[in-house]
């Protein structure tokens, strides 16, 4: 199996990473060599194996639906690249 340039561009769209043409070609090469190495898994028959989703054999705990953090709105907003009063600002979404 090979990953072509078209697929790389499609994946970069899904991953929301813009990609220059030259870099896309290099990335396709890298991904192909990595997947060549990953294909080794196909040697194994796994029809009857249960997938391992979590190593911690616990069920997720529930907690009370209660606010436990202090009022840190100011501190949170301080990290924002662009803000207006108490809001995060993004480029215009609706025309």
């Amino acid at each position, binding site marked *: 199996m090979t990953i072509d340039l078209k697929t790389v561009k499609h994946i*970069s769209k899904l991953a929301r990473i813009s990609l220059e043409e030259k870099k896309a070609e290099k990335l396709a090469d890298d*991904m192909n060599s990595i997947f060549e190495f*990953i294909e080794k898994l196909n040697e194994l028959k796994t029809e009857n194996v249960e997938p391992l989703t979590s190593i911690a054999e*616990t069920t997720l705990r529930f907690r009370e639906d209660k606010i436990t953090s202090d009022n840190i709105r100011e501190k949170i907003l301080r*990290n924002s*690249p662009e803000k207006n009063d108490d809001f995060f600002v993004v480029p215009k979404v609706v025309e």
Partner: protein
Amino acid sequence: MTDITSLSLFELIKNIKEKKISSNEATKSFVDRSEKSKKLNAYVTENFENCLKLSKEFDNKPNYDLKLPGIPIAVKDLFCTNEVRTTAGSNILNNFVPSYESTITQNIWNEGGILLGKLNCDEFAMGSSNETSFFGNVQNPIAKDLVPGGSSGGSSSALAANLTPVTIGTDTGGSIRQPASFTGTVGLKPTYGSCSRYGIVAFASSLDQAGPMSKNVKDSSILLEVISSFDKKDSTSIDFKRNNYSSELTRNIKGIKIGIPKEYRVDGMPDEIENLWKKGIEYAKDCGAEIIDISLPHTSYALPTYYIVAPAEASSNLARYDGVKYGLRSSGESLIDMYEKTRSEGFGEEVKRRIMIGTYVLSSGYYDAYYLKAQKVRQLIKKDFDEAYNKVDAILTPSTPSSAFKIGEKSNDPVSMYLNDIFTVPVNLAGLPGISIPAGRDKNNYPLGLQIIGKPFDEQTVLNIAYSMEEKINYKNNISDWWME
């Protein structure tokens, strides 16, 4: 007396408790040495002024009952520290100042530790040489232009160079043990679920685990005791009875059964690694352990499994970096354009590569072929260990397939870089505890490590074997301070 910075953590604590050294004196020594060691590029953010101030406060009101009384400690820059910049080695978090503290660092401050600074690492902990950091390469104090390993490369470098008495790293596929092996230091990855992940910048959540890095085994046991705790804020934190690792530490390992997995004898493994392993087996026998040959048949499938599971989880975890609420933002004509430009400029090449792999294996039509397949093989790898542990108490292997390499030597070939983690990755996939201890040198005099892998939650046995073997091996790092002006 000897230089304060060359003391072990245990000795430093003892001297502080006996009032032979004050916290401020100790802090000054580490700050001075760190100031003279900028060429190593181990720090991303220094906290020296504040650390000196807090050490004085400690000395004015000392509490010697604490486990880390007034001890300055630098930590990997993957742990969120309240009001202190936390970058994860990435441009996208260059200006990020957390408003909360990771549980592990909080545990350290609660026991009297003081933040000395934040240490360089591979970007989002993705790398084995610290070369993927936005903040540049880190030098290995062992020799010039040698990588310190990764991803906890700033941690291993600072520790080996005596810039911090002890440190913490994180380990997703070997990121504590491999840099420890490359710098002649000790690094322990605990059982998944024993040290809280709360406040650690996430890479691959089912594999990430933080742990101690130190100059000797005893120091790791002291630090593990502080950082290992059940934490409600981490949904996979496990509530089990934790040992008093340092006081229960013993060199008596008579009758302990240690397994030697034949599959770790990989093709093309250098003779010096093979010989180191053989010597390790002799040391273990000298310590009173019984050596048993075992088989872990799916070992060769661990790396391919890891390079599906880890990027898949990473692509999902790193979706949060969108330039909206924190971190870098690039300007774009529309919201989507802004996202795409921010992530393209904010992430480095290796991180983008892994996000792309992860997005691909999770994308429609490929999920079953890759991600589900990998999870099934992960089960087989775990079962190998489960079966081995019916026969043995622990497993002994080399830590890495080679010693430290030169900066730039492997950075153009991702697969050859990934092979570095061949002996450490299976341990993360199975969620087990593993330690790397320095055990010898190669022909260039670069350190080599041995890995001891334990049963889940049995850090004590892992530490005891390491403690016992450490005495027999009697390895001493030989650092020339070549980087000093």
